[in-house]
Structures are given as C-alpha cells and as structure tokens.
C-alpha cells in the first residue's frame, strides 16, 4: 500500500465520485418532486416548494402510516421465517455431501431463478369464484 502513487489515488477518487454521482442521480428528481408544486418543463428546479405531499404521508385520512406499519410487519415476519426455513437447508447443503445434493440445490434455487410471475399468474378455480371476475387478481398485481 505504501507504493500507491498520487495520480493513481486521485484517479480512484475521481472514479469513486463518478460512481456515487451515478448512484444518487436518479434519486434527485424524486426528492425534488416530493416537495414541489407543479413544476413546468424548462425550469431546472421547482419554482415553488410545498409540503403538501409530505403532509399527506402523515394525514390519518390517507392511511399511509397504517400501510407502512403493515408492510414493515410483513417484511419482518418474512425475514424471520425465511431465516428459520432457509438457514438449516443451507447448512445441510454446505456442510454435507449426500446423494441428491445437486437436485436439492436446484430445487432451492429454482424459485429465485424462475420469475414469480410465471407461478403466480394462474389462480385456482376457488379463487376465481371468490373474485367474481377473472382479471381482478392480475389487475391488483399490476396496480
């Protein structure tokens, strides 16, 4: 590390700055729009800012906070369950050599590879009867 010359270090710093800029750039308009009133085309920054959008987040009428709590709950529950179910299997596959290990590995990885869409598009008949309309499930997924 002592042999690192100054130009190389400067080059790496510049490259790192470029990477960070690229990673953060798409977030900029999103943040600006969240606090701007109508913002017409040629203007580079919002002409008028407003907290209306942010206030809607905590407005009890929008139920967004309840939704957030629900999402967090689902996320936490999934994370815990996935660890409880997945870690033992990972331990078995990593620790032991046994017959059918390849097949097991394939089965465990298949859901990651095969898109969720391919296996969730087909609702069962019972579900269809409950929904009334055949398209309601897919439409909810697209929304």
């Amino acid at each position, binding site marked *: 590390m002592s042999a690192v010359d100054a130009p190389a270090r400067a080059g790496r710093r510049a490259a790192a700055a470029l990477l960070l800029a690229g990673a953060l750039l798409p977030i900029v308009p999103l943040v600006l729009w969240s606090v701007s009133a109508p913002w017409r085309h040629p203007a580079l920054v919002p002409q008028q800012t407003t907290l209306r959008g942010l206030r809607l987040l905590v407005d009890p009428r929008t139920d967004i906070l309840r939704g957030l709590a629900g999402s967090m709950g689902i996320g936490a529950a999934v994370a815990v369950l996935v660890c409880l179910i997945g870690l033992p299997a990972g331990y078995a596959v990593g620790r032991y050599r046994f017959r059918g290990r390849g097949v*097991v590995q394939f089965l465990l990885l298949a859901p990651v590879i*095969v*898109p969720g869409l391919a*296996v969730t598009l087909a609702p069962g008949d019972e579900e*269809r009867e409950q929904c009334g309309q055949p398209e309601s499930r*897919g439409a909810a997924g*697209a929304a």
Partner: protein
Amino acid sequence: MSGLPRWVRHRRVRIGLLLAPALSVVAVFFLAGVVQAVAQSLGYQPYLPGQRLSLDAYRALGTDPAVRASLVLTTRVAGVSTAASVVLGVGAALVIRGLGRSRRWVTAAFAANLAVPHLVGALAMLLLLAQSGLLSRLAAAVGLTSTPAGFPALTADRFGVAIIAEYVWKETPFLALIALAALGRGISDLQGAARVLGAGRGRRLWHVTLPLLAPPVGAGAVLVFAFAAGSYEVPYLLGRPYPATLPVVALQGATAADLTERPEAMAVAVLIAVLSGAVVALYLAVLPRAGGHRHERDEREQPRSAGGSR
C-alpha cells in the same frame, strides 16, 4: 450434539430434518405454481366447456408477431442490463477496494439503492429520463434543446433505454457488493505472490483477480438476467405496450377479459421460465472451468488453517 436423541445424530436423518422445511415450502408454493402454469398453458381450464389439452398455445406463440418482437426485446433488455451491470459492478468493486479510509462510507452510499424497490426506481427513472424529466431540463438549460420533444425519447422507446437504465442502476451495486465480498477473501496474499513472481498490474488483474471474481459474479449475473427477463413492473412502467417484454405480454394475456387468451399467456410464462433456465444451464456448463480455480484456492488455504504446518 450429545444432548440430541441418538436417531437425530444419524447423518441421513439429520440432513433430512434440515432440508424438510425448505423443500416443503418449495413444493407447496413453487412447484404447485409451475404445475398449474404448465397445465393452463396446455389448455387445462375445467371451468370452460369444450376445452381439451393441446399444444395450440405454444403453436400460437411461434406465429404471434407480438411474442416474437417481445422475445427479441426481452433478451436484449436482460442481456444488455446484465452485461452493463457486470462491467460496472466489477469496476466499481475494484475502485472501491482501492480507496483508503473513505471505503466504508462510499460502499454504504453506493449500495444504498439496494433498499430502493424497483417500482420506486422505475418512477425515479421516469422523472429523470422522460422528455419532461430532469435530463431534458438540463439539456434545455445548456441550450441543446428548445422543447421537450427535442429531447430523445428514452422512456417508452423502441430499444428499452429506460428499462435498461433502471436495471443497471439497481443491479450494479448488487454485483459490486458480491465482487467486494469475493475480493475480501485472502486475495491480497495471492496478489502479493503474483507480484513477487513478476506479474505486472494487468496480468495480476487478468490472471488472479478476475478468475477469483468469475464464479460469484457469474452466479450474481445469472440472477440479474433472470430477474430482468422475468419481472414485469419496470417494463410495465417504462416500456411500450407493443412490443412489450415477455412478462408484460404474459400479464396482458392473463388479465384479459377473454379467458381463451389465458393458455397463451401461460405459455409465455413457461417460455420465460425456460429462458431463465437456459441461462442457468449455460452458467452451470461454464462453472466447472471457473470452479477449478476455487478448488485450487481451497487446497492452498487448508494447510494454513490447519495450524501452520508449513
């Protein structure tokens, strides 16, 4: 281990117990879905009278110009996204690894968008790349364009620029983190050895660093490709209705009011799964070659971990 009953200590039973929960989940939630998708693609619709099992849906896929255009678009979007993410991700990992004290926070800031959902990422890309987006405003500000229409259409375009941009933006940090993790494991020793043996910077990169990165980054790239080829929300928001990517076509067919379109939609879903599976097979076929490096490294590390027998 001695506290466990004797039958649990039996190796086969133990492996079975460890695997049972995960394999049950896969069987119930995944395999059942696959079977249902395949069955419906073959025309299995007990609630519609006069239906019989057939390969009609697959035959229809072959002649449907929408599906053909979609296959080209999907392969292109997933392929370009994956290739660009791999190059940028490995490059980013090498750059970040070369940093000094700032390495930690640069990694954190760079990887922050891993937490951003693709749906939000797509929205951000829309606000950035659309003809009224931030880039278009920047172009107008420096006098390159005078109207929004003067800015090239990067969203809902024929090539899929915005879709690719979103995937590259999201997946580059993912692959960079994988590469950084792989670079952390004892690579300095190997680098040092290669340097002592007279390998220059370029040869060390080509013969030491990249072979070590290939297996984990390759596996990550397969995941990226499968995701880009198989998810619908980003192309749904940033792409055209025609030609749309395969997942969007499948969704259009599956949500259509006309139930007779369902077998073809399911056939598209099966096609997506087969496309992803083909990429995995390709990776597994290439892996033994790349895996050789890993075994060599394992053997090299073993004597050292055995307590300095050398």
